[in-house]
């Protein structure tokens, strides 16, 4: 069932192969849609892209979902899913604010590290439960979704984080730009780059794909499945934790519904970006572009004059279109591969 290479890639000329790969690339397809959306909206209202604010918000707003989608991709690739990311985000966002309230002099970098560790810890809980007990991640993370949010609400109680609780240097991060690119977006892009590099080249990263495309084969092959799956959840939790810190920096206030419902958006962004929900294929680049597309559409609709009430419907239609497109493409490829296999198998059969 997996896409083992039955046709020698070198049989096709390199240029042809690259062109073909580019044409088939999901990242490029979604990216094109994104560019079209931006272009169309900008024609309607030039300030969407060309004003300083427009440019900044275009890059800044998706940074949260970007982090969540990247982490989610690492988990989905292993044929699992993490529904607790929204609650993890909320919990760490509050934790971040609380740190500043309790220890006003804390350096900002320490808070980022603390948020990252907090998220990683929450992810570790998910990972251990899923990997050691061999129980479906959907159920476990649905449970921890409730638990983490409950802990967040009980802990926060009626106290909350206001901008005045936070140091100015931290709040300024929310809007600071380096070469017109917002700092928070840079954080997101760095996380994206590191994760993408790891998944694409490192042994551990490739093993995540192997586990996702056939968990049983991965076990039989001797891959450290338990460790890798836990690792994926820790990564996802850590990035959600980072997103929590980013949330606090960006919005300045943390109230009880921070991150509510973000989990489905994160899964949606990954799916739109071509990450197969049954694992084993997809890239973080695609998920990142998916996150940008989701957020940008949300922001573009009111500008184009579509009532914001219809936003969710458009997003839903987009997710379904993405899944259907995936199916059509993979069905075509499968047919081709089967044809190729039948040819090579003929003598032995």
């Amino acid at each position: 069932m997996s896409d083992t290479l039955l046709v020698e890639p070198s049989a096709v000329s390199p240029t042809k192969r690259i062109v073909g790969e580019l044409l088939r690339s999901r990242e490029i397809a979604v990216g094109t849609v994104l560019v079209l959306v931006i272009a169309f909206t900008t024609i309607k209202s030039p300030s969407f892209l060309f004003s300083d604010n427009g440019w900044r918000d275009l890059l800044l707003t998706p940074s949260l979902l970007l982090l969540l989608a990247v982490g989610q991709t690492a988990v989905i690739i292993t044929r699992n899913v993490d529904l607790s990311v929204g609650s993890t985000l909320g919990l760490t966002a509050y934790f971040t604010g609380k740190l500043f309230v309790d220890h006003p002099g804390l350096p900002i970098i320490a808070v980022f590290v603390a948020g990252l560790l907090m998220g990683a810890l929450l992810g570790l809980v998910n990972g251990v439960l899923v990997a050691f007990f061999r129980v479906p991640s959907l159920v476990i993370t649905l449970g921890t979704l409730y638990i983490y949010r409950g802990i967040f609400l009980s802990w926060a109680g009626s106290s909350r984080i206001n901008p005045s609780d936070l140091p100015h240097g931290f709040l300024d991060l929310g809007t600071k730009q380096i070469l017109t690119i917002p700092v928070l977006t840079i954080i997101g892009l760095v996380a994206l780059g590191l994760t993408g590099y790891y998944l694409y080249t490192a042994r551990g990263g490739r093993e995540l794909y192997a586990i996702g495309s056939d968990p049983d084969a991965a076990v039989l092959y001797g891959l450290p499945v338990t460790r890798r799956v836990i690792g994926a959840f820790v990564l996802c939790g850590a990035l959600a934790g980072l997103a929590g810190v980013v949330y606090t920096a960006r919005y300045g206030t943390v109230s009880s519904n921070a991150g509510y419902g973000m989990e489905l958006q994160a899964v949606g962004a990954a799916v739109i970006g071509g990450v197969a929900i049954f694992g084993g294929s997809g890239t973080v680049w695609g998920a990142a572009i998916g996150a940008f597309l989701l957020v940008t559409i949300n922001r573009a609709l009111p500008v184009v004059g579509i009532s914001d009430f219809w936003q969710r419907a458009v997003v839903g239609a987009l997710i379904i279109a993405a899944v259907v497109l995936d199916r059509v493409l993979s069905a075509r490829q499968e047919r081709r591969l089967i044809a190729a296999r039948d040819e090579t198998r003929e003598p032995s059969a």
Partner: protein
Amino acid sequence: MSTSVLSRPEGSTRSYPAYSRPLWRRVLFTREFAVIALLVAVIFYSNNNVPNFDGPLTFYYLFLDIAPILLIALPMTLVIITGEIDLSVASVVGLSSVLVAQLHVEAGLSIPVAGLIAILVGAVCGAFNGFLVAYVGLPSLAVTIGTLALYRGIAVGLLGTKAVTDFPEKWTDLAKERIVEGHAYPMILIPFVVLAIAFVLLLHFSPFGRGVFEIGLNDEAAHFTGVNVQRTKFLLFVLAGAVSAFAGIYYTLRFGSARGDNATGLELQVIAAVLLGGVSIFGGRGAIHGVIAGVILIGVISSAMRLESYTVNKINIVIGTLLVLSVISTSFLGWAKDLWSRRGRGSGPSSSEKNGQHRQAVAADESTNER
């Protein structure tokens, strides 16, 4: 959900050791009865320790509150037993709520006619899910995340900022009326019991139901034993849509208010209750009575905790923990049992397991060849 073989806990596959125990033990010592026992224990405890829990209103409100979850849990059980999932049910509830309101207030239709149309639309929503999942072959998790947003978006888009509240009193009262005055059982339990019996017959006492289990255990194998896998899945999604729409009508009338955001997040509650009730998320295992007990258990715990003046966050922690424990316990028990039997019988089971796996792989191979 996944088709993995190794990680699936032992389901209701009939093997001789299971039949060596007497029937009463086989019926009582099950996950379903564990949930029922827990439910009885919680009710017993709450009756004695939670002030006002034994009051006359507790169970009346309890049933009113959990009725939508009870209703939707029935088709959801079947959907999950086939190894699929439907996340869009709560959005269908919202959509049907809005539709009833629009058709009744704007178009002037009577409530039954408006309700009937809403149920039809719900069935169409379910059919759309079912078509994409069963016939196009898409993963249900991805499809229904999409339709979750899509149907909710349509509902919110149709009604906008408004909340429709002018429903005839006759109907809003009916939604809250008791079957027998002075007892705790509201009217909504009548359609629920009828549906529950229908679903029990469908799942546990019909060839269709056997097919549902078989699909969950192995849909390739089910296909080869003559189960119409595609049609079965399609029909289940249609049922889920229609029943969710019915729950939406009840929801609207009970609160006397139709809003686009009605029942947001209900899908996770339904799934949590179904899984708590002993249905395996991998498919192939589960029973209606366990699910009903699971739904009521969550309702009773929330109700008791509210009476103890715990607020919603503590309730969420308890329900979440219960859900996690319930799945862990199954796999932990399965693991312990496995260890025990392996120690007793040497390497016997593991070799037969491999055998079965091999056979399955061959079957899968053949089916791809055929395509």
